[in-house]
């Protein structure tokens, strides 16, 4: 990258992307999860409505990105998946294929990698309802919604078009050629679902500001009969056009050029790891630096430590442990 090149100048945005005190929600592909610790470390308010209980700090963390985002939706790769999540949360879409029973686990096809999956049908219903409520809370209470568009390729249900985050049978479940199909969303479909999502989001949160980004992570594989490089360029091109269309058609929707900063010809070689797929830490830091320069800042905010995870209950559990230990000793001595 040439010394005179300033990544912050790639963004042409009116007004701050995020203002001090704004509640921020993010969603999208794995690149979107990378943003969260930077936002929190910089002192912005990352709104979390699920997986916040201190119990989760004492056990192995939830798999993949389920506990990294505002609610436990995990990675959302396609705009169709994002639109579908909001419609499900609002009770406006109920997938035909809503649960996979595998051994003693009730798997959510739309969150197939959950470590802490339901163990009964009733628990599945209760957890799914609670999750979708948490989605509504996050989406309706945020001031800023950041979405990273990740993929155009997806796997859908032939019954009702429900979009799965991964091909059934890969993370969980079983692939059934009579029920599941590959679909590569075209530019009209991606744009339509993105615009429909923004419109629906504004029904429950009229003043929300939306920031769109495109993931710079290339596809690891393609289900199209072509080279993965060709599929990557197609996919990113479609996503970029859809994002631009959404910005041009909606006030309060901005595009932040993280994709361009990392993939453009000015980008240094080390913006990707040696595998030439994973984005390097220095690239993410460059992007976040440019991003924060477009946000409202105060000197005191810069570099602020990440807020501590609230652990409210240690006194109660320490007391009960001490008490039970004492009673066990008393009982043992009484024998």
């Amino acid at each position, binding site marked *: 990258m040439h010394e005179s090149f300033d990544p912050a100048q790639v963004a042409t945005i009116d007004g701050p992307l995020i203002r001090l005190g704004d509640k921020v929600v993010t969603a999208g592909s794995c690149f979107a999860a990378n943003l969260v610790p930077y936002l929190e470390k910089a002192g912005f308010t990352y709104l979390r409505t699920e997986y*916040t*209980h*201190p*119990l*989760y700090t*004492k*056990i*192995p963390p939830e798999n993949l990105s389920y506990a990294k985002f505002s609610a436990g939706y995990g990675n959302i790769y396609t705009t169709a998946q994002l639109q579908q999540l909001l419609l499900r949360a609002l009770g406006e879409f109920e997938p035909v294929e809503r649960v996979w029973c595998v051994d003693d686990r009730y798997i959510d096809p739309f969150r197939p990698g*959950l*470590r*802490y*999956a*339901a*163990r*009964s*049908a*009733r*628990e599945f219903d*209760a*957890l799914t309802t*609670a999750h979708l409520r948490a989605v509504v809370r996050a989406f309706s209470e945020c001031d800023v919604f950041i979405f990273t568009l990740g993929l155009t390729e997806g796997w859908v249900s032939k019954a009702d078009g429900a979009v799965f985050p991964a091909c059934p049978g890969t993370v969980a479940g079983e692939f059934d050629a009579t029920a599941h199909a590959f679909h590569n969303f075209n530019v009209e479909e991606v744009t339509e679902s993105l615009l429909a999502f923004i419109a629906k989001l504004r029904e429950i949160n009229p003043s929300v500001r939306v920031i769109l980004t495109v993931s710079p992570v290339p596809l690891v594989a393609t289900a199209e009969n072509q080279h993965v490089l060709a599929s990557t360029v197609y996919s990113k091109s479609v996503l970029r056009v859809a994002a631009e269309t959404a910005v041009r058609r909606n006030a309060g929707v901005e595009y932040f050029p993280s994709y361009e900063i990392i993939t453009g010809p000015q980008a240094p070689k080390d913006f990707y790891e040696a595998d030439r797929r994973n984005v390097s830490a220095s690239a993410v830091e460059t992007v976040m630096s440019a991003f924060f320069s477009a946000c409202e800042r105060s000197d005191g905010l810069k570099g602020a430590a990440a807020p501590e995870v609230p652990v*409210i*209950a240690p*006194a*109660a*559990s*320490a*007391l*009960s*442990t*001490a*008490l*039970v*230990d*004492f*009673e*066990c*000793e*008393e*009982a*043992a*001595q009484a*024998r």
Partner: protein
Amino acid sequence: MNVTRSFDGSTTIAPIASHGDGVLGVLSPWPRPLEAFWAAALEGAKDRAVAVSYGGNIHLARFLFAPQPMFDFVASEHPDLPLDESVELIPEAAIRAELAPHVINVRPRLEALAKVAAKVLYIGSPPPKGDDEFIAKCLRAEKFFVNLAKSSNIALEDVRFSPRLLRLKLWHALQAIMRETAEGVGATFVPAPEAGKTDEGYLHADYYAVDVSHANKLYGAQVVANLRRYVD
């Protein structure tokens, strides 16, 4: 239990007179010297039926007092128990992940015993007491706890118990973990006797020991009678 000789502070096996001929127990000081305790049990296990009561109180050790924020969960083996939808819902699998490590420790001990014993029985713990007023009284009368609360700057009147239904669900979850642990090493899980429970599944008041977490000798007698059925 009544042992046939006075306890000299060492970890050893001794006959338990109150349970008849041929019944032995491991005597040890507290806190238990774990290796010596299990070595003594193993030493006496050859060709005998061995009953193990261990790790059954962790649900109360972790959650007797109301967690903040409050949570609830669906107990998979008792899915019809009411669910408090006004508090945070935690997956039962996460609850099990919290409780299980405390029971998993006993697994290699049971496994070692199962290799030499005629039979290994893993005793389920008594269900929780459902009478909050009773356990509150015990707590207020317990000098150890009063002093502990005082030194922790916690006012006794501010101490809140977990809802009794949550305690019951936690106990059910723990019993399932204990049963699976036993079955995983070829031991037999002996569940809490039904006669010791109320209709709702809590410990019957007749079997309350005068403390927060334990059952009394009458309940113990039921457990012993139950064990005999598994041995005979």
